[in-house]
């Protein structure tokens, strides 16, 4: 496209197909402990 660059490939809807396995890290166990930051967590299935 000339005017738009899209940085993402899959959409959130796509992630519903295989999602919800629950194997991923609990968000507070990483570094925060006083906030909630989920968007930066990694999907265990993509490791």
């Amino acid at each position, binding site marked *: 496209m000339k005017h*738009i660059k899209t940085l993402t490939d899959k959409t959130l809807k796509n992630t519903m197909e295989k999602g919800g396995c629950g194997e991923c890290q*609990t968000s507070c166990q990483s570094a925060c402990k006083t906030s909630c930051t989920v968007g930066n967590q990694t999907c265990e299935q993509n490791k």
Partner: protein
Amino acid sequence: MIHQFINNGYYIVLDVCSGSVHVVDQLVYDVIALYEQFDAEEIKQKLSQYPPAEIDEALAEIRELKEQGKLFTQDVYRDAIVDFKKRKTVVKALCLHIAHDCNLACKYCFAGEGEYHGDRSLMSYEVGKKALDFLIENSGSRVNLEVDFFGGEPLMNFRVVRELVAYGRSRERECNKKFRFTLTTNGVLLDDEVMEFANREMSNVVLSIDGRREVHDRMRPTRNGKGSYDLIIDKFKKMAESRHQTNYYVRGTFTHYNLDFSKDVLHLADEGFEQISMEPVVAQPSEPYAIREEDLPELLKEYDKLAKEMVERKKAGKGFQFFHFMIDLTGGPCLYKRLSGCGSGTEYLAVTPWGDLYPCHQFVGMEQFKLGNVDTGVTNTEVVDEFKLCNVYAKEKCKDCFARFYCSGGCAANSYNFHGNLLEAYDVGCELERKRVECALMLKAALYEEGE
């Protein structure tokens, strides 16, 4: 729902419900703002500064993305998330309060200098062992189990940490589990023996340091009132290097006293740390160091400043990670994870030195949130049910927020501390989170341009 913003010269359009991120030119940016309200002719009239043919081109690209489900998508996830949250959950992570005691006297400590509104106490091996057994028994078919050695200062009870790691490892094979241990420490007791152990056994290490010496020493004095920066800085550097600059964080807290916190992050980067986290203090407004609403404009500018500097450093080959700007646009969390929250009170529990269970470390000591103990298991199912219902659709403030897929509805403890219930949101925290998401997306846009 669309969220569009300009940051560091980048025109960014986030299609909130699909999670698609688009970097656009000014023309498309202006067209998208009008797209849902006006037809093509009206848009051309309103944007007469652009040649009509160019507007037609922009409209064609927008339509194409809309057809692909990457622009102007609707939030259709509500039912799926409500059902998902109702499911039978397993416990997959424990925060072990291995020591309710501390060798520092940090002024902002939510644990009250490590004591958590209770007596100074160290967790015994027996209690810790029961906690690990409880986790194994309540984790269903989940393989990866997380255990964080937290405090107070966990190294004040290092012997028990070591014994519990050995016990956990001894049960991994028979139970088909894998423990991922984390150690959070203020560094005072960190020595070669601890480092060697941590590098062998800990998946992650969180090293507490607030940044510049004067900032750190003001809020993190020793018990006799002296600064602690010089006690820890060299040990933290050694630890970071010995872990090859991965699988650790130096983690700081900023307060009303250092609103220019980007300097603290950059100080840590200048000292050679590559994994950095810096969080706003969470405190009652009556505390002099608490972040206030009037601090927000300055704090938002600081995040912008930091993000811009990170782009420059990355281009110069001196990049580092800032925890709150990390965002995974390709292999990130699934929708269920994004909308169901941190798991406190259900998948994630905190254990006190004497074995009581709480929804998370921040609720420890609040009697009404006590869930049970390591002998009885979870008995207060009423509170667990309350946490189960916690999701972004249950929170009025989150419904129209563009950041809801990134913060997952925010921290339940913050909500409770500021509003007295779990389904609110800590407004100052929300403002900061929205800015962090914007900065994170800008960083992605800038690095995409660099070919990464």
